């Protein structure tokens, strides 16, 4: 089978960051920030806007931004990942159902509650009849979507694919996750990202889109060399699996210039990365992003976009550094995200010289 190369040719993002250069947000008392929304009316007609929930609007705008950035109007596929789906509408319908004892309910919130609403609304807006899919698997929802698109482009089934990672963090869901220990209960400090000594992370939300293509052109940010999603319950051999992954791509860890990891200030989470990337010799430069995006099930989308920009611009914004170990040209970035150490996503991104 002829294998095609896969490139990132466009990106779009709605996040807790203001437009322009990255800034460290003030995490406040609650360690909980919500998106800074764009003027939706510039992108979506008022008649449609009225019915859409926040996450759908954001998902559509980040998708449109990525398409525009990549110079494509009609993608071959729309594939989304979302950990929680349209949780605001789900909560509204659920609350009404409970409060009204299953009576006199309105359909609007139910209609918008399914996880595939974002993918579907993008398709309806673009009149895109092509491949359409949605993944919802905890902290690797976006990576699953990315992998689906990557695989099909590689196999020649698609020439491009629009990938979206969308999640919203409603106050109610934030509260629920607080109860199960997701969030830090002490004020966030930058030191937490360097050496975490407490549990919990900071809560954010966002929609991030990437346009993948088999064509390298003036829009290209980086090449996705390979993706591996590893489920390894009860196993402790991630080191070996990482080595296999790099070996399959003709590389060793010492040839990786930078690792963009899912470090989030939660000590158990971060220990996994520290073991892999700080204890050896000739360690890669360590890059981080969750202090800038907040943590949510698809926050890796934000990190992937930053990685793509680093490779394109050959410039690392200071706030992304955790530790600078190498100063050479950045050829390969290993993107590594794990969810509770049970599922790992390894994504190898490489520079494209035109």
């Amino acid at each position, binding site marked *: *089978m002829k294998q095609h190369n896969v490139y990132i040719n466009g990106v779009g993002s709605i996040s807790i960051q203001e437009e322009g250069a990255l800034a460290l947000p003030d995490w406040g008392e609650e360690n909980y920030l919500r998106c800074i929304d764009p003027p939706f009316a510039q992108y979506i007609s008022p008649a449609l806007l009225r019915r859409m929930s926040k996450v759908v609007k954001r998902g559509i705008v980040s998708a449109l931004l990525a398409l525009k950035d990549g110079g494509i109007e009609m993608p071959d596929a*729309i594939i989304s990942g*979302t*950990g*929680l*789906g349209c949780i605001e509408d789900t909560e509204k*319908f*659920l*609350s009404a*159902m*409970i409060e009204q*004892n*299953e*009576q006199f309910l309105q*359909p609007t919130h*139910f*209609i918008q*509650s*399914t*996880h*595939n*609403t974002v*993918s*579907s*609304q993008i*398709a*309806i807006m673009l*009149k*895109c*009849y*092509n*491949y*359409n*899919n*949605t*993944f*919802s*698997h*905890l902290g*690797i*929802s976006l990576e*699953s979507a990315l992998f*689906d698109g990557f*695989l*099909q482009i*590689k*196999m020649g*089934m698609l020439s491009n694919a629009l990938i979206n990672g969308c999640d919203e963090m409603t106050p109610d869901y934030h*509260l*629920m*996750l607080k*109860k*199960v220990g997701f969030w830090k209960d002490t004020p966030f400090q930058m030191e937490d990202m360097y050496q975490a000594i407490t549990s919990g992370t900071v809560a954010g939300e966002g929609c991030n889109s990437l346009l993948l293509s088999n064509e390298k052109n003036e829009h290209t940010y980086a090449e996705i060399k390979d993706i591996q*999603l*590893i*489920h*390894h*319950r*009860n*196993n402790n051999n991630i080191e070996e699996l990482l080595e296999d992954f790099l070996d399959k791509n003709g590389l060793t860890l010492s040839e990786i210039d930078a690792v963009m990891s899912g470090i989030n200030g939660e000590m158990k989470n971060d220990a996994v990365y520290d073991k892999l990337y700080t204890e050896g010799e000739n360690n890669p430069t360590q890059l981080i992003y969750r202090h800038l995006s907040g943590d949510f099930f698809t926050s890796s989308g934000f990190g992937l976009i930053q990685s793509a920009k680093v490779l394109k611009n050959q410039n690392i914004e200071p706030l992304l550094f955790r530790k600078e170990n190498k100063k050479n040209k950045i050829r390969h970035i290993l993107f590594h995200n794990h969810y509770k150490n049970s599922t790992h996503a390894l994504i190898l991104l490489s520079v494209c010289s035109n």
Partner: protein
Amino acid sequence: MNQRIAITGLGIISAIGNNQSDTLRSLLESQSGIGEMQFLDSIHHEFPVGEVKLSDAELKKLCQIDDESIIGRTTLLGILAVREALKEAQIEQVEKHKIGLISGTTVGGMEKSEQFYLDFLQNDLHNEYINIHDCGACTEGIVEHTGNFCFCTTISTACSSAANALIMGANMLKAGYLDIVVVGGAECLSKFHLNGFNTLMILDKTPCKPFDQNRSGITLGEGAGYLVLETEEHAAKRNVKPICFVSGYGNACDAYHQTASSPDGKGALLAMQKALKMSGLKPQEIDYINAHGTGTQNNDLSEGIAVQQLFTPVPPISSTKSLTGHTTSAAGGVEIILSILAMKNQFLPQNLNYQDKIEELNFEPIKSNMLNHPIQHFLKNSFGFGGNNSSIIISNNI
């Protein structure tokens, strides 16, 4: 040819049986599993449902899981079906293989969240259920009780979730990322779904009547259906005889409306065309269509129009939702397996509760089981909210 995708194991649980053999018996006898709700704690008893005839406690017992375990009904259904599929495929130790699980679900642990939601927000009585609310947690729960899969993800495209899981799984095998993959879906009944569909006024107060002129909506069901896929070459290496093969599949988007199908069935037609193209088969080579056939005015007309455009004449067609109810995210898995059981036993399963032809359509569904009717290739349609339409073509191994 040896890169063909073989199906080597099936696992199913639905209103018409807790395993393959019970299911086949019900299917042969056209015994519907639809009736008054026994287990779902809803006020809406006016709607019949297709429940699995076991309580959560009985399901746990059957799974050999401690009654105190924090586990949702969707996960329990999934565990039983995945185990049955693995057993038939002769996979005893999952960790010995490069094997993945791709599961479809939509409501996830909702049937527990809807009981405890106010507690989640107001007190700490049921916090242990918060972690099992979402879709991914359901799949992880299945993995925890079925084996150490090296890849695992969840697809959530409403009622076509399981079919899309099959498509992703087949692609991963073709690209060599996995040797074996278990694909399908699981979904239990929930008040959330029942009330949601009720607000859309698409639930039938009598058992659903797909493709009938006077059809008046869906009967919700629940269940799980999983298939073990591997390349023909890999199955041969393991000395396992394929039950049948995945010949083609197509995924398209109707791009019309979040909950309604387009009047011309565009997305449905595209999905079927893509599947046919991949299979290399001509429309007249399809011996049977297992329709999405929900029983709503909108779906059956839209799907029927699309089928008519592609097939002249329309091959024997039925919606087995008239037996099981609509198992939503599991439907793709459950109904492909029902069709495979029919194929292996050489009969065409009937479309229950049918009386009058839909005026706008030129075909009628199968009115009674047609025995001694070999099937070489069948097409399965699976459509979901959001216009997520997928079609799968399965070919017999004889």
